[in-house]
């Protein structure tokens, strides 16, 4: 159980003109699971390696339970990293791999053997101890790598893209396993991912990093529905944006006026609504617009419509049956539920 604080953490690689990670401030509650989310090359893994002690920060501080750990060498931090490609030591057996951390802590062999068995049980691979890593499938190797990290009861568990090398069905299994183990052991966990859905499902809080800068650090729900900038909204699949001006809970734009109860003070802004929050309306009313269907795609569980309203184009996710009613060129009426509308600060590109 460790509370992690990153204070102004910065990493500037020699020869680079811009920091890989710039002035990062995050507080990670003890026992919580936080995702560092961002496209590849945004500085997530750099951050992770700095926490583990494998990279030296250029500035800022890292604190475990309010004590700076910058002077503590990586092997003593107890911040164990699980790499994306598992990195099981190929010439050791599975049991030797899992027991490695305890061996480094000079634990006696009998205890190691017992703990290894426990860990293999925990990751649901009992009796695999005598095998060599290359005899295991990718998903099994991943679980062994997890067991190898957990056996030392780490202060902090650092998972680098834990699911990206797995097939779709293994990904769900692994995701649930990580969540289950993390909750039951209560280990403060940071994981790096580029997949916003993965982050949303697993994490208590998400730190979205774009171009080395923290954009927003909040719950998955807040990032999806209350993004603080257009870039964030776009990263989470937001596509519907309307330039306009808001005042007193009313947003005025080219398409008319909308009630926006969640809006802040008056000023210019960008109205946004998630494609799945738009509903198809039967009749005119407040917060409705009329347009025509520009294209439609059937995705099985639902259908995606592109709707032209005046100059603007809206993406709508409707239920699967909608596609039978609304063909291309058909008139359609869209409703924007007031509670689902969100106003972003102005700016950002089209």
């Amino acid at each position: 159980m460790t509370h992690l604080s990153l204070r102004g953490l910065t990493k500037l690689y020699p020869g680079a003109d811009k920091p890989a990670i710039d002035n990062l401030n995050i507080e990670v509650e003890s026992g919580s699971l936080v995702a560092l989310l961002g496209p590849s090359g945004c500085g997530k893994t750099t951050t992770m390696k700095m926490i583990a002690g494998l990279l030296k920060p250029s500035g800022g501080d890292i604190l475990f339970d309010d004590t700076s750990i910058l002077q503590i060498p990586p092997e003593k931090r107890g911040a164990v990293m699980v790499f994306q490609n598992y990195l099981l030591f190929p010439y050791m057996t599975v049991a030797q791999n899992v027991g490695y951390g305890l061996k480094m802590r000079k634990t006696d062999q009998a205890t190691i053997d017992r703990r290894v068995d426990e860990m293999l049980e925990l990751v649901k691979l009992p009796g695999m101890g005598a095998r060599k890593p290359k005899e295991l499938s990718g998903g099994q190797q991943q679980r062994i790598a997890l067991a190898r990290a957990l056996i030392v009861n780490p202060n902090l568990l650092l998972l680098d893209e834990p699911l990206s090398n797995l097939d779709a069905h293994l990904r769900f299994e692994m995701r649930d396993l990580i969540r289950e183990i993390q909750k039951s052991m209560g280990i403060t966990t940071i994981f790096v991912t580029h997949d916003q859905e993965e982050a949303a499902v697993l994490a208590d809080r998400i730190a979205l990093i774009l171009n080395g800068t923290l954009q927003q650090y909040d719950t998955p729900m807040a990032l999806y529905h209350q993004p603080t900038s257009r870039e964030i909204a776009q990263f989470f699949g937001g596509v519907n944006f309307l330039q306009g001006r808001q005042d007193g809970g009313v947003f005025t734009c080219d398409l008319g006026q909308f009630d926006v109860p969640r809006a802040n003070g008056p000023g210019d802004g960008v109205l946004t609504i998630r494609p799945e929050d738009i509903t198809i309306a039967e009749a005119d009313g407040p917060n409705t617009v009329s347009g025509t269907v520009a294209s439609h795609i059937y995705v099985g569980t639902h259908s995606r419509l592109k709707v032209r309203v005046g100059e603007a184009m809206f993406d709508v996710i409707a239920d699967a049956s909608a596609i039978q009613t609304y063909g291309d060129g058909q008139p359609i009426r869209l409703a924007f539920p007031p509670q689902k509308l969100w106003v972003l600060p102005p700016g950002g590109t089209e």
Partner: protein
Amino acid sequence: MGHPIRRAAFYFTVGVISLILVAPVIAFMINAFAFRWFYPQLIPQEWSLQAWERLGLIPRAGERSVSGFIDLWMSVPDVVSALWLSLAIGVTVTGLSVIIGLPAARALGLYKFRGKRIVEFMIITPTILPPIAFSLGLNINFIRWDLALQDMGIPIDLAGSVIGVSIVHLVPVMPYVVLTLSGVFANYNPDFEAQARSLGARPLRIFWDVTLPSILPGLFVAALFAFLVSWSQYLLTFLIGQGRVVTLPMLLFSAAGTGNNAMIAALSLVFIAPAILILLVTSRYLSGESSAVGGFGRV
């Protein structure tokens, strides 16, 4: 390779190559045990161990008991002392070259840095430069340094000593070691070390547990090259050793002038024996399955 003609061609090629490689050794074998082998005899009519007796490796007739062998070898004939000296220098040079070469190879194999091509070129220059060019210069410098060391009260000789010869052997050895090992490191993932560190291993422990097992096959090959290059040095030993460091090649070259074919052949067999022995032991590391020699493709 299913087609019979292709298979026949394969075995024919392998046979011819083997013959070319093995034939000289067979010639040495015959010569080393031949006695009074005159024209027009196709193979010798008489056999003897005379050459081996004269080299002091086999006792005279009548003394060929276990104790006879021990007595002879304990008296350290020239060949035996040369053999030991060659072996000692070879092992020293191998050890030193690996210790020096490992960090260099790691840097070259793992990292990109400014001037890397120049460093790589500098490392392979000893294979391009004629040894006589740099060894004459080194010899003069060694003599100067010896004088300087004596002035400082340090009685170490580099010129004409085993130390000096060992150091100068490093010159032709280093390119082989660094190039072989940098190839190994080019396929090496340093994240394994980070993983071990993160699990609580200290740096020395990481080298032992993670680095060494991964590079071991390549290290074997590098050490093999190092030893064989040192083992077969004649010119450098001769110039820097000033005739006072008598290794096996020194004996071989002086014997070559005598015209005694049996003795030259016997000495040659002694000379190539360790090489063949090492090759047999390490052959599995040299086969295509192993990535140990993969580095040569890169340079």
